[in-house]
């Protein structure tokens, strides 16, 4: 366990290093010049000399490795720099945005699990065609219709026609409902199918037949063995979902004007706000790596025979 932890931490550190360098370099190789945005050349006159002056002031004329080293030194002091757009500390901006993303992504995920766990296990347990048809329809709809489209339809009904919920904004729990429900329907579809298939696979295994032959209660077999045994792949997908949600739910955040991290990044990329983009990539990568590590440890606890993906 200890060795696994050290190995995983080492891998995570290497991954973080590669990601910081990758993000730093790729942001700088992106087309677009933050200096032109800063000088607002679309509206204000700027001569080539003035543009060059600003470039030098920001250190963009230095070699890439020098800029990278300077940035790493700042990061090591937990200084993520200041946003070009607002002048506010990057860390504080990201913190606010992650909180907003967490509100809709967390609620959406919770609702998805509340929908998927009963439906997935129900359809795995029951072989009734009506049950199978119902769960298939729910998961197909969720998978086929994009979440923002579901969001627009729900908005039309619940905000425009019934006027029960707000169209947009972040004003308390009622403004979380529409984006979270839209997200949950898309997420639930994956888990319904995943749970059903994995539970059924588990139920078909020899040890389950032996357990039945030994007279163990069906309820115990289902919950203690089949469901538990089916969880590692579900957890793996769950971690991937968490990772992608940590990056923000861009379209929903834009449609519902919810100030999450995805919406923030769209703005940052358009404005070429390098400190903000780099800070985002670094923090999001850190979150994903940590989640991945936790998932592996949790899987290890659930299935001690399952070693880093190998049985």
């Amino acid at each position: 366990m200890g060795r696994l932890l050290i190995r995983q931490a080492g891998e995570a550190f290497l991954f973080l290093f590669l990601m910081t360098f990758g993000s730093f370099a790729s942001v700088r190789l992106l087309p677009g010049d933050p200096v032109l945005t800063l000088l607002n050349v679309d509206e204000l006159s700027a001569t080539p000399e003035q543009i060059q002056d600003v470039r030098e002031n920001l250190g963009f004329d230095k070699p890439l490795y020098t800029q990278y080293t300077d940035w790493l030194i700042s990061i090591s002091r937990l200084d993520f720099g200041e946003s070009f757009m607002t002048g506010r500390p990057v860390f504080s901006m990201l913190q606010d945005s992650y909180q907003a993303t967490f509100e809709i992504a967390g609620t959406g995920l919770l609702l998805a699990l509340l929908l998927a766990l009963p439906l997935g296990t129900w359809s795995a347990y029951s072989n009734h065609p009506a049950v199978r048809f119902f769960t298939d329809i729910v998961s197909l709809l969720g998978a086929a219709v994009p979440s923002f489209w579901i969001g627009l339809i729900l908005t039309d009904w619940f905000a425009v026609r019934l006027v029960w919920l707000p169209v947009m904004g972040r004003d308390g729990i009622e403004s979380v409902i529409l984006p979270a429900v839209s997200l949950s329907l898309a997420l639930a579809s994956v888990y319904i199918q995943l749970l059903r298939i994995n539970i059924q696979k588990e139920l078909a295994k020899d040890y389950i037949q032996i357990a039945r032959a030994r007279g163990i209660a069906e309820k115990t077999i289902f919950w203690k063995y089949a469901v538990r045994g089916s969880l590692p792949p579900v957890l793996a997908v769950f971690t991937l979902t968490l990772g992608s949600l940590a990056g923000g739910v861009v379209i929903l955040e834009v449609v519902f004007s919810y100030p999450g991290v995805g919406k923030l990044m769209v703005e940052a990329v358009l404005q070429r706000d390098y400190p903000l983009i780099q800070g985002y990539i670094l923090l999001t990568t850190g979150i994903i790596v940590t989640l991945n590590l936790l998932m592996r440890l949790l899987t290890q606890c659930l299935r001690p025979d399952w070693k880093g993906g190998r049985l």
Partner: protein
Amino acid sequence: MFTYKKYLRQTVRTIALGAVLLSGCSPETESTESDHLTFVYNFSTLSLDPHRDSSYVPLRAGVTETLVRLDDEKLTVEPWLAKSWKNETETVWRLELQQGITFQNGKTVDADAVKSSLERSIAENMGVKNALKIKSIKVDGNDLLFETNTVYPEFISELVNPNTAIIDTTAKKIEARPIGTGPFTVSAFSPGTKVELTRFEGYWGRPAKLETVNFLFNEDAGARTMSLQSGQADIVYRPEAESVDRLKKNGFAIDVTETFRVHQLTMNVTDGPMQSLPVRKAIDALIDRKQLVDHVLQGYATVATGPFISSFPFAPDYEQRTDQTAISYLKQAGYILQDGQMQKDGQPLTLTLLTYSARPDLPLIAQVLQDDAKKIGITIKIRQIDVPEEYMSSHRDWDLATYSNLTAPRGDAGYYLNATYHPQGGLNFSGVNDGALTKQLDQLNRTVNPAKRNALAEQIARDVDQKQFNSFLLHPATLVAYDQSRVEGWKTEKSEYYMITNMLEVK
């Protein structure tokens, strides 16, 4: 054997409870409140710092004001926080401030406060620093003396820029609660979502008729439109163009107003076929501007005859274009139609046209032009680029580019003409280096008298048209939809600077 009956019962209970909760949490129907208005804008901002915010929300929301403002009818610079101004020497401007104005925290707006605010604006915003070209600011009683680095006739008009708004620099949390001089104060700000405004009772002008305003942000046109239909919003900026007919049918008012923006065809006059004036005129003659307005912009634009909208005092009355066709211009340039292709010395006329998707109309315009050119034997190859300014300034492997910019955002022609046609201009992507034109521009840059300046700018605009360095296509319009049964006093300004004003009210 366990059953799912329990689950089902629980699920039904949860849904029932959810429905009860939902019915109890109807959104605040603020638009039905008297003296309250909700406005939805199409850009968001993460900071209300008036000196940094490129969405200009503090000015648009009526929180801040500038020294001078743009009059929407005459399109001239008018006094605002400054009462008057004069040019003392070639490089020194004297501005007299209005008296009796206070900031929203009760502090007096005096010359020292204005100086401090402008100094902060220059320190915080490199664009403002470049645009104002201020060498020093001195306080002289109620006046301010500005010395500029060079002779700078545009100085006063540059003070229209919302990023030069006057604020109390000693106030804290400027990025969340700037203290300006406008009719509304910020009572709450949620970055990227909304600004809540309250009437400033001590406003130096006529106090606002509205008591509170919610200034919301949403980049999605569909969502903005739905917010109007649901009653959550009273006014929405740029609703979904496809929904305009439906909105009209439902009784909403739609304002269509031309803006200072021009969509143009920038021509590379330093390399390739576009060096030839007849070829440039041929391309210009090829453009069916009416078709672009009707089909690409769905009618929400006006045909452009030059860079400036016709209501500007320096916009020339252009002579009617001749009936000469693109083909006749090309023949004049030595091209002949052979095997369905325009050729000169055996070389087919093939042009590279740059376009970019940041403005969705432009790639469509490029396609229309490509089709029209094909009909007369010109091959146009469309190349998609990401950042036009960067590409055009560093590459010369193109002939034409669809481009869009603001031509006189602060009411003076100098910015556009210099940026686009002066050899040192930041937007001179065509590579124009015309001695006579440069001389005219230099003269414009020394001319302070507004009437003489306008006459000179008009002459330059006319000469530029004759030399056909660019083709001007259309001026896109701004659409605003509002509930006319409730909203009174709304005016869509061409400048798009002043939105929430003291004149706005609800019935």
